[in-house]
């Protein structure tokens, strides 16, 4: 077959260079278009010119308004020719030119004439062109013809009118909706294509009328729909009807399921696939319903057509997320797809296998993936790495082989994002699987020996400094770290010095040896490296007494900065070099920017190195430090919990205030973060007057005013309350901001001497039960539950009345309790009728609490709840029930 081809190509070598459109130019073609005006039309020549015009348009060339108008008028002349090929070109050209409303009128009469022509083909094409170019007013004029055309005995004409209807529905829905009787008739047509088009149009006309769609589906699923395309449409509509009539499912048999199942035996592949996919997408699909669909998808997996394989594996991948067991039968077929030519198919196969695999198949799977990884692109590799990470968290016992796999691929070539994904995964595994820690750290050490990415090296060194000293033999990491000081760039070297110092500070036995290494760094070529080494040597050195106790020194060196970095940066920028050294205590501690950043990633698992684990705790540490530095609060004991800031003013008001609730055993402190947004004002003696009349259990003990509040420099004022110890007292507090306002001269920036007293109403603040609960998860809920004394268990049942959905109820209960959902049980599978949610937390007084709460919803949306609480203190278990009963 190929032979004559080659020969011919050789012969035509020179001609091959030549294209019929070689050197084509718009101006010249527009000149050529004058032949359209010839009294004696040359149909062939005209067709050629139109082809050239089409070529120009398809190359992205545009015509100016004048040019387009000229061409359009010229083309309309061609209606005089009787040549059919030319006529067909004319139709196409008019559609391509899409003339403006004032030009359309020129051509409508010709098209109307064609629409009523004796030649059916002229009629069909004229309908299409007309529907493409006319507007609403003209449409009403030809509506009569279109309605006739829909039921025309010629299927071409009928299809043309129906498809036009589908498009016109977007622009003139009220007109097209009037055709529904004719369309209904066309659905019964014997011509397959007419039936398909009619079905699509009829559904679009009625899509907002559920009952009508349901009727349509009921009647058509009984009869025979001819074209496979129409059958596919019908399956989709059926699926929609099933979804909307979900309340019937409790009766056992799902409506129309028999129909879907029968479609699995259809002779057209597309119908079979459509039905299989529809079944997998059914709400709350059972494994009995899934089986036949999975079986046909399994057959598609070994199809010779890549598209079918892709479609099947994509669907199975989705099913595997919700019903992994249903897909396991296909594992063997999927394993053979790992070597599929099409990388999309192979990657989908891998990730599906990772979802469905069991503990025993992990090793075999990893072997196969290893071969596969070398020949796919980075973006696919990242998907695989993420799938492996979740697999490892699912089967923690398999950490060894999975960790080995990750370290192997870490050594191979790859871009930054890929490497970062692997490092992040290893870090997450180290954090979540204690046994994996040493081996994981070792792999990371190996990696930084040959890591080309400064960012990753520094992140790993930082992580190593935190985790390494806590291992059984910290000394073995020193070599890797010190190698960085010798071999790397300044950024990495400086980071390595800090890591060395951490080891020295935390492991006394290593201290003398670390000091030897740090002293060598004093001669480094980079000043930052030298500075760090000097700092650490002087502060950690036993003979030097820069700081107070050992603890103070460590805290100073490695403790979190208790000021927000943004504020520190602003203060440093404003600081002018002078004799007075920069005072870090002058940096405002207002954490206003924090909630925004937290809101962005609600409940997101800390992702690898990007978000160090100290993130959330450092805010609490900062609060704790801040409060303990205020003498009035020092007697309150240990801070139990600080809430996230609650806004008490609208955005962009004169004064912006938010409040943080600090909970102690017997006290509550409100921290009001205030910002003055008016440049011409200075506020002094700022306090918040709190009315606690709706919070009977609370009595105010201290109010700490803020002396001055200049423009755009946040400050805090505090109010403390006493409350019964250990009791989760709740209440509502109304707040009034009081202050003395002084005018500021914008030119000099100096404030006037005399001020005026003023006040500003703030929103109310509430203390709720959830404020007394710390969200602390447990890694294995079952073990934790069983290790609690069953005598402390309290069980009760509650009727919650009619609720919108189960998911909403579960979220509400979690919010009331303020506890941490475990094992992903906060997610309610859609359409499920019962759900059990596992919660864990620490109640005020440091009492561990576990909650197992089961929900059930019936047909009338009545929700019942069974709440089982175990805690270290039976009284606390009772209290949790009280909280729920009150909520």
């Amino acid at each position, binding site marked *: 077959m190929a032979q004559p081809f080659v020969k011919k*190509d050789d012969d*035509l070598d020179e*001609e*091959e260079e*030549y*294209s*019929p*459109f070689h050197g084509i130019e718009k101006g010249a073609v527009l000149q050529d278009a004058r032949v359209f005006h010839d009294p004696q039309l040359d149909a062939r020549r005209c*067709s*050629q010119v*139109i*082809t050239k015009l*089409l*070529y120009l348009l*398809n*190359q*992205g060339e545009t015509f100016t308004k004048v040019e387009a108008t000229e061409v359009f008028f010229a083309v309309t002349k061609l209606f005089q020719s009787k040549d*059919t*090929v030319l*006529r*067909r*070109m004319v139709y*196409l050209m008019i*559609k391509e030119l899409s003339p403006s409303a004032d030009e359309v009128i020129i051509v409508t009469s010709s098209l109307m004439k064609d629409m009523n022509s004796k*030649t*059916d*083909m*002229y009629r069909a*094409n004229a309908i*299409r062109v007309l529907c*493409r170019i006319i507007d609403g007013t003209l449409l009403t004029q030809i509506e009569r013809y279109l309605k006739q055309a829909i039921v025309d005995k*010629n*299927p*071409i004409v009928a*299809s043309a009118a129906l*498809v036009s209807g*589908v*498009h016109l529905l977007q622009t003139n829905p009220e007109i097209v909706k009037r055709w529904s009787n004719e369309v209904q008739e066309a659905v019964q047509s014997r*011509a397959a*294509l007419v039936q398909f088009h009619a079905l699509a149009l009829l559904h679009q006309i009625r899509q907002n009328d559920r009952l009508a769609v349901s009727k349509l589906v009921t009647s058509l699923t009984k009869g025979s729909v001819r074209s496979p*395309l129409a059958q596919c449409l019908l399956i*989709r509509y059926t699926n929609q009807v099933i979804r909307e009539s979900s309340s019937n499912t409790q009766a056992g048999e799902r409506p129309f399921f028999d129909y879907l199942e029968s479609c699995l035996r259809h002779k057209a*592949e*597309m119908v079979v*696939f*459509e039905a299989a996919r529809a079944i997998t997408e059914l709400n709350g699909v059972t494994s009995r319903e899934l089986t036949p669909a999975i079986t046909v998808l399994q057959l598609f997996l070994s199809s010779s*057509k*890549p*598209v*079918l394989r*892709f*479609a099947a594996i*994509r669907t199975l991948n989705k099913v595997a997320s919700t019903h992994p067991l249903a897909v396991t039968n296909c594992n063997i077929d999927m394993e053979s797809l790992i070597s599929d030519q*099409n990388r*999309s198919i192979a990657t989908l196969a891998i990730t599906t296998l990772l979802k469905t695999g069991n503990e025993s198949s992990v090793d075999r799977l990893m072997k196969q993936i290893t071969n596969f990884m070398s020949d796919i692109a980075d973006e696919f590799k990242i998907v695989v790495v993420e799938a492996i990470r979740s697999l490892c968290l699912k089967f923690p016992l398999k950490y060894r082989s999975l960790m080995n796999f990750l370290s192997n691929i870490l050594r191979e070539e790859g871009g930054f994002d890929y490497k970062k994904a692997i490092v992040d995964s290893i870090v997450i595994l180290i954090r979540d699987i204690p046994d994996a820690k040493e081996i994981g750290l070792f792999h990371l050490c190996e990696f930084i020996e040959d890591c080309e990415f400064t960012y990753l090296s520094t992140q790993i060194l930082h992580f190593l400094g935190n985790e390494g000293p806590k291992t059984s033999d910290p000394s073995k990491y020193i070599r890797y770290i010190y190698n960085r000081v010798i071999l790397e760039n300044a950024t990495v070297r400086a980071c390595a010095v800090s890591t060395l110092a951490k080891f020295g500070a935390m492991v006394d036995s290593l201290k003398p040896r670390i000091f030897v290494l740090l002293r060598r760094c004093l001669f480094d070529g980079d000043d930052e490296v030298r500075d760090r080494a000097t700092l650490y040597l002087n502060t950690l050195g036993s003979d030097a007494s820069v700081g107070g106790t050992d603890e103070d020194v460590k805290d100073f060196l490695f403790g979190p900065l208790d000021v927000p970095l943004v504020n520190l940066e602003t203060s440093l920028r404003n600081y002018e070099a002078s004799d007075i050294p920069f005072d870090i205590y002058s940096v405002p501690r207002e954490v206003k920017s924090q909630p925004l950043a937290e809101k962005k990633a609600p409940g997101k698992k800390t992702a690898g190195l990007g978000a160090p684990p100290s993130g959330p705790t450092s805010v609490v540490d900062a609060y704790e430090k801040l409060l303990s530095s205020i003498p009035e609060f020092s007697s309150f004991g240990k801070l139990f919990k600080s809430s996230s800031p609650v806004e008490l003013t609208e955005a962009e008001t004169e004064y912006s205030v938010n409040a943080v609730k600090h909970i102690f055993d017997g006290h509550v402190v409100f921290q009001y973060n205030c910002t003055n947004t008016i440049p011409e004002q200075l506020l002094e003696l700022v306090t918040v007057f709190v009315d606690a009349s709706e919070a009977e259990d609370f009595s105010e003990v201290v109010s700490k005013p803020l002396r001055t509040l200049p423009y755009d420099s946040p400050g805090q004022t505090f109010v403390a309350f006493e409350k019964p110890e250990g009791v989760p007292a709740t209440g509502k507090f109304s707040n009034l901001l009081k202050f003395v306002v002084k005018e500021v001269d914008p030119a000099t920036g100096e404030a006037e001497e005399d001020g005026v007293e003023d006040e500003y109403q703030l929103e109310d603040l509430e203390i709720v039960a959830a404020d007394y609960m710390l969200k602390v998860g447990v890694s294995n809920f079952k073990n934790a539950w069983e290790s609690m004394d069953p005598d402390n268990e309290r069980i009760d049942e509650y009727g919650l009345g009619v609720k919108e959905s189960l998911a909403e109820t579960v979220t509400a209960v979690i919010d009331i309790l303020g506890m941490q959902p475990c094992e992903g049980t906060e997610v309610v599978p859609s359409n499920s009728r019962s759900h059990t949610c596992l919660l864990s937390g620490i109640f005020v007084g440091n009492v561990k609490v576990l909650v197992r709460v089961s929900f059930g919803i019936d047909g009338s949306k009545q929700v019942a709840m069974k709440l089982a609480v175990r805690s270290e203190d039976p009284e606390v278990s009772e209290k949790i029930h009280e909280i729920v009963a009150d909520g």
Partner: protein
Amino acid sequence: MILAVLFTNADGNILVERFHGVPAEERLHWRSFLVKLGADNLKGAKNEELLVASHKSVFVVYTILGDVCIYVVGKDEYDELALAELIFVVTSSVKDVCGKPPTERLFLDHYGKICLCLDEIIWKGMLENTDKDRIRRLMRLKAPTDA
């Protein structure tokens, strides 16, 4: 919706492009994305072997026919299977018009007819005709045989 149908030569030069419901400013991006996709994967592919890719909620099915690369892009109801159906119609009609898998020259020689074919196959982003004999007759304004 069928978002795009694109024909290029082996070097990635555009022969025909048709977009439906794709804003003008995104077209260039799509064009280069598809050409790159073809450059990466179509080398060594067999004639009319279908390749498939998905990007977010959009599907791409593409193939090589003679010297011409053909890409179709769709979303929603036009998933990989519907697009495979579409590209099958397109390739068989092009072969029909050209008489064999076309060289670039042959393709350009029959440019007008190919435009007519596409006009019959796709109507504003929707697949309309799928039978190549029917399309051939429709192009010549002849009533189809089953009419």
